[in-house]
């Protein structure tokens, strides 16, 4: 898929990937081997009928193609952009073994964009069931569950704590990967299904889960995400200039600090930035730092490049944009100046030892390898845990040792009757599409509950 040149994109937050033209899309779709086993569709957590939509694209029936996708997926323009297709549909494609798999994500994005530019028809409203469901959190799991339930005729209200809808899609994923305009369009589509979104409503503070049930909601779906930032717990971590990835990305994405002072929320970047971690949030933060004008941006990771959990595409994008990779390096202490600002990181070099429980080779410190790395800003992007707001305010809701809500894997039902959960509040930090799969599965179980009672 065509992309903006690295030179152009490091100066703006505009979308990096440019998308297919009609001709490119049709030509790509015609590469599909139409294999009878449909391995691509097997790899999709929301069960999009991939070969069928690809065939419609090949026949230039773009409207038919987007309708086919939307039967299963209410957020196609988002999934086409942020799904890790290489691990799912595209990873299963027969072409993957022979070289380049079919660009399924790019085709999904193409037909979704085609429809949006043309104007999306709101679907006909189904007959009202008279039943009400509350969804807590408007991220990918919540939006998907809400859309599925609204399609069945249930009244759905989403309670969102922040002022903008979309959860991690709004606060976590930068404009250059997922333009906010596209997010807004998909959120508007979900509203057009009859879903009401109430922003500024912190469930766990303003109302409890039990109060929602008492207020007349027949079921509650909890999808409050992985909002708890992890820190390294090493000396000096509270110095000025050290951000969690969540804070850095919320300032940039949700609060638009990259437009300060037109927008009121500030951010400090300085000239030397180190992002600690190797996941997608680390890549996002590093690429934001480049665009905010930092002179040198480095990703610091304790294992080697091969072990980084980030999508390969995002690692390559960061690389092209001039991000340095300081691999096999572990921060052990932050060093501050006399005014409380971070000025350097004391680090250790590592080597890879025996494989650990995750199957990856375990990083082992090299004795005597201490060195200091000068910095103005540090972003700690070593992961996040389940948001504790609902678990700590809901007695009787079972959570595991990490604070993740425990569910029945088939239905999403929690230890409380009529209360379901899904997405990162259960998984602790997974992908958009897995969260959507959870939303879909819980919606099915909720619908069955409502049909029974």
């Amino acid at each position, binding site marked *: 898929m065509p992309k903006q040149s690295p030179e152009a994109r490091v100066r703006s937050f505009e979308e990096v990937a440019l998308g297919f033209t009609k001709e490119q899309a049709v030509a790509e779709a015609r590469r599909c081997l139409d294999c009878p086993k449909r391995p691509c569709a097997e790899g999709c957590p929301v069960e999009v009928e991939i070969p069928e939509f690809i065939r419609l694209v090949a026949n230039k029936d773009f409207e038919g193609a987007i309708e086919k996708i939307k039967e299963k997926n209410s957020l196609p323009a988002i999934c086409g952009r942020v799904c890790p297709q290489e691990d799912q549909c595209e990873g299963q494609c027969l072409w993957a073994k022979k070289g380049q798999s079919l660009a399924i994500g790019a085709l999904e994005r193409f037909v979704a964009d085609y429809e949006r530019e043309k104007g999306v028809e709101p679907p006909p409203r189904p007959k009202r069931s008279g039943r009400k469901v509350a969804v807590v959190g408007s991220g990918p799991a919540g939006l998907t569950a809400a859309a599925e339930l609204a399609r069945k005729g249930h009244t759905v209200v989403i309670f969102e*704590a*922040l*002022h903008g809808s979309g959860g991690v899609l709004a*606060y976590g994923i930068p404009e250059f990967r997922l333009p906010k305009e596209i997010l807004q369009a998909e959120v508007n589509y979900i509203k057009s299904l009859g879903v009401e979104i109430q*922003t*500024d*409503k*912190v469930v766990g*503070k*303003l*109302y409890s889960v039990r109060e929602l049930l008492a207020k007349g909601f027949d079921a509650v779906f909890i999808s409050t995400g992985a*909002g*708890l*930032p992890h*820190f390294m*717990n090493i000396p000096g*971590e*509270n*110095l*000025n*200039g050290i*951000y*969690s990835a*969540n*804070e850095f990305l*919320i*300032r940039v994405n949700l*609060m*638009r600090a990259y*437009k*300060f*002072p*037109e*927008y*009121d*929320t*500030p951010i*400090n970047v300085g000239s030397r930035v180190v992002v600690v971690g190797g996941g997608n949030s680390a890549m996002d933060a590093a690429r934001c730092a480049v665009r905010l004008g930092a002179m040198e941006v480095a990703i610091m990771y304790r294992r080697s490049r091969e072990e980084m959990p980030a999508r390969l595409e995002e690692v390559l994008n960061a690389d092209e944009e001039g991000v340095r990779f300081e691999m096999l390096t572990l921060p052990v202490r932050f060093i501050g100046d006399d*005014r*409380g*600002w971070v000025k350097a990181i004391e680090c250790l070099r590592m080597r890879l030892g025996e494989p650990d429980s995750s199957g990856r080779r375990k990083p082992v410190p090299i004795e005597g390898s201490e060195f200091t790395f000068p910095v103005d800003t540090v972003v700690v992007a070593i992961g996040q845990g389940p*948001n*504790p*707001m609902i678990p700590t305010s809901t007695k009787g809701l079972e959570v595991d040792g990490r604070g993740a809500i425990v569910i029945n894997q088939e239905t999403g039902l929690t230890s409380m009757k009529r209360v379901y959960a899904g997405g990162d509040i259960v998984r602790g930090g997974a992908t958009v599409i897995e969260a959507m799969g959870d939303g879909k599965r819980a919606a099915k179980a909720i619908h069955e509950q409502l049909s029974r009672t």
Partner: protein
Amino acid sequence: MYEIISMKELAPKIKMVEVKAPEIAEKAQPGQFIVVRVDRNGERIPLTIADYDAVRGTVATVFQEVGVSTEKLGGLKPGESVMDFVGPLGTPSEMASFGRVMMVGGGVGVPPLYPQARVMRKLGNTVVSIIGARTADLLVFEEEMRAVSDELHIATDDGSRGFKGFVTDLLRSLIENGPKPDRVIAVGPAIMMKAVSDVTRPFNIKTIVSLNSIMVDATGMCGACRVSVGGRTRFTCVHGPEFDGHEVDFEELMARLRTYMEREKASLRRYKESQRGG
């Protein structure tokens, strides 16, 4: 959108805004705060609740106009609205019958003490309040505090009203010369809360402070408000805003409060120029 019911100037640059927010008014408890975002481009600013009225459905907060966001907020009139008003956030104050409770407030820290003092007194505590400001003109919520205190003491830095000196001087003399308080609650600038904690430490009096850390989401997601308490990193927004003052690392808090000072100054200059330019 949340409607502004009233906007009162209590002192130069210090205003009280009352916002229509019935659900928050019903749930609010002493010690909690709200987040306000004035307009589409606004930042999320945390402000401690100064009063709430479930019957009228209103929540009030007192703020000082120190930057673009608070200037914008202060410029709004009744009938106009703020874009977002979120709450009640944070853990409520611990309310119980402690015995003799001293409330120490400085500047815009006085109003948040008011709902606490009101409830503390209802619970049978003897409430002794010490309120202060740089000068008499800047003293706010005197009458409100008087109405809910058994004793009210006033201090101003320049002596233009009440005792000449800091609230901490007055606090020390009250502790040394009177019955020892069972609990001290201090709300005000970080430096004042630090000084209060230093005064009470040798007397071993439990001292609760309400921290005014920088926040973004204010629901526990970003960690901007992290502070060391008893050697552990805590988030002011969810674990606080109240902590044991004897355990708070105030030096770290004060350094972190300076994070955006330069940028905020530049932004305020720009804002004021744009206001002048019409």
